[in-house]
């Protein structure tokens, strides 16, 4: 039981896409980090802002076009309604696996001590205010602040 003292690990995740399939990896990685006793924080920027925006979080879609793993020709995947269809199918599958929804995941993350930040520049670009974001978002910060926060952390871009 003699444990060797390791330096405290820290993970900084950058979530820059707003797709359902693109949001989960960041959230699950951060959660897994917290469960392993690793400090975690996520920086939501550009389309990733949708993941923490109150009006968008429940309607994240899956982009099949240009995704060779979707198994669907791009010309079909680009048809209207395909994104929401794919999102619906994916959500159903996740429900069967008892995977929490994005909203629940964010809540679990906040409760487990992960810190969530939104990008100030992206906020200005998309004309969003702090009130438009979910209450789990700790603060709106700049890229410079992000570097300060992520000092000594492993950075993962998703």
């Amino acid at each position, binding site marked *: *039981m003699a*444990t060797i003292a390791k330096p405290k690990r820290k993970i900084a995740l950058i979530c820059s896409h707003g797709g359902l399939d693109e949001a989960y990896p960041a959230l*699950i990685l951060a*959660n*897994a980090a*917290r*469960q*392993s*006793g690793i400090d975690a924080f996520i920086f939501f920027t550009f389309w990733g802002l949708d993941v923490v925006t109150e009006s968008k979080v429940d309607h994240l879609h899956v982009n099949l076009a240009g995704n060779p793993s979707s198994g669907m020709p791009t010309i079909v995947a680009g048809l209207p309604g395909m994104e929401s269809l794919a999102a619906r199918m994916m959500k159903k599958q996740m*429900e*069967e*696996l*008892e*995977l*929490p929804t994005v909203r629940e995941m964010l*809540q*679990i993350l906040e*409760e*487990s*001590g992960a810190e969530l930040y939104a990008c100030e520049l992206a906020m200005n670009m998309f004309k969003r205010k702090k009130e438009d974001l979910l209450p789990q978002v700790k603060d709106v910060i700049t890229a410079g602040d992000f570097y300060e926060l992520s000092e000594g952390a492993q950075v993962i871009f998703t």
Partner: protein
Amino acid sequence: METTQTSAQKTEPRAPTNGSTLPNDAAALMAKRMEVMEEQLAYLVKRQRAQEELFADLTPIGKDLLNVVTERFSELEKEGAISFAQELLAVTRKVVQHYGPEDVRQFGNAVVTILDTVRALTQPEVLAIAGQASTVLQNADQAEPIGIMGMVRASRNEDVQKGMAVMMELLKHVGHAAKAMAEQRREPTGADKRKADLAKRLGPKKKKVLGVERPQVIEDARQEARDLGPPVLCADPAVKEEPEAAATMLDGVGFTADGHLANPKAWTRDLALNIAHAQGVELDDARWKVVEFARADFEEHGVSPNVRRLTLGTGLATRDLYTMFPKAPARTIAKIAGIPKPAGCI
């Protein structure tokens, strides 16, 4: 008068049978009563006669009245009032047939909403818009058919733009109401039912539980977690039948390379206290309950519970678990409970 006399005669022979005492007194009493009755009868006869006279006088008048009433009815009949009333009755009957008392009660509840809607619709401004729209509809035959290009051209008109905005807003509200209705009528899914069931058993989830006794709740939750069946995880957990080979031995107890007890059956409460101490956690009642749940859940399913399963099973919030076991809660709990490392990602 004669009948009363006969009854009086009948009673007289009965007097002696009552006994020989005072038969004359009884006869006197009877005579007095008869006098009173005679007076009353005379009064009744007088009234009867008066009524007959009145009736005789009234009969011709009554006949006239009947004639007038009949005439009026036939007039009404000609005007169609009677058939109208009959139709009205038929309508009422139909309404009664098609709507039960429950419908009427619902209507009663909705009366205020209906009145509000009618009032809003009859505002002068609303009526003005409706009037404008109706004049356009009246001249609908003169409208020129347009295609997509025509639509694009028309959309440059500011009035059309305004109208489109109004229509969009209208659509938004209709959609919102429809969504609310769908939500109301939605059949609960299996997951909803499970969640509601758990919530019912566990009470408010955010309740502060540190150090608070909740034995029954925990017991119920444990049963519930068993009823939920084996946990579904994003990775297939490999159920280990055989205890892992011990990598290190400490005080005669084997531990795996990742610091978990090699054989869960070798677990004792004293050992748990020691492991907890080494992990920097002091076990109080609330923490013991979590550890016990983890052990019971492992025995049930052969898989160590992850954080999500621990929160669902014990009724604790994620935040509480991280407060009680600050560093890697699920792993720390598994170590203390003497069970393998939890599998899965959530």
